């Protein structure tokens, strides 16, 4: 080995990077992970096919929700109607009872 090669080995020996280098690399890698997560969401928002799929899903959900709501409202109205009819029937029967009672009271003294 000649002197130049010796000198080159000495001059080109490995050097440590500035303090905190590894920490900065790890922080940058972590930052890139977070950025990637954000960019996935960004892709979702930017991709026309996914955007249309999302819009379609939203419409289906809203329509389904609307139909279900109307169905529930109708069932509620039916139950209310049934309850009202029952109440009217009860009231009618009670009124008839009262009416018969009144009639009985009115007729009773004459018979006595």
């Amino acid at each position: 080995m000649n002197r130049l090669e010796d000198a080159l080995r000495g001059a080109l020996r490995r050097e440590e990077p500035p303090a905190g280098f590894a920490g900065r690399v790890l922080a940058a890698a972590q930052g890139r992970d977070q950025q990637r997560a954000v960019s996935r969401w960004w892709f979702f928002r930017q991709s026309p096919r996914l955007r249309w799929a999302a819009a379609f899903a939203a419409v289906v959900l809203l329509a389904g929700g609307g139909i279900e709501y109307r169905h529930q409202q109708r069932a509620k109205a039916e139950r209310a109607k049934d309850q009202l009819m029952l109440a009217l029937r009860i009231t009618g029967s009670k009124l008839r009872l009262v009416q018969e009672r009144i009639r009985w009271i009115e007729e009773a003294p004459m018979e006595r």
Partner: protein
Amino acid sequence: MPEAVKAGTVDRIDFAEVVREHQAMVFSIAYHFLHDRPAAEELAQDVFLQLYRNLGGLESPEHVTHWLRRVTANRCIDVCRRRKLMPRIGLDQIPEPSSPAGVADPLLERRLRQLVASLPEKWRALVILRYQEDLDNEEIAALLEMPVGTVKSQLSRALDLLREKASRFLGEVE
């Protein structure tokens, strides 16, 4: 060598150990190539981030080392070509000492580094991989995807140029 790397699985947890293990190698290749500490640090950081994205494809510690050397050397060459860094330090700009100096002389080492940084980028990569990383011609050829004969001849020409320029302050170099 990190335990998990020894086992042949490089995962996200081991990335920190890989960085600590190889940071001096990557930074030094970049620094000796670019002769610019901030630029070398930036390049080394980019190389490690690229490694982070490619961790899944690396199978052994040797593969990691090979990958880092190859990517760092190629990135250095690209940066030099893109920024036209190569002529930043021309051979003619380097002052020559009036008297010969010893090889352990820090001034001499600094001037040698400047001389290396003034070489054409391919030659620079060969010299750095040979004398910093202590690789032989076959390993350098595999790393830079060059024929062994080309590595041998270009390295020889690079050394001739360095010898010619360095002779005045190295004294007899043979």
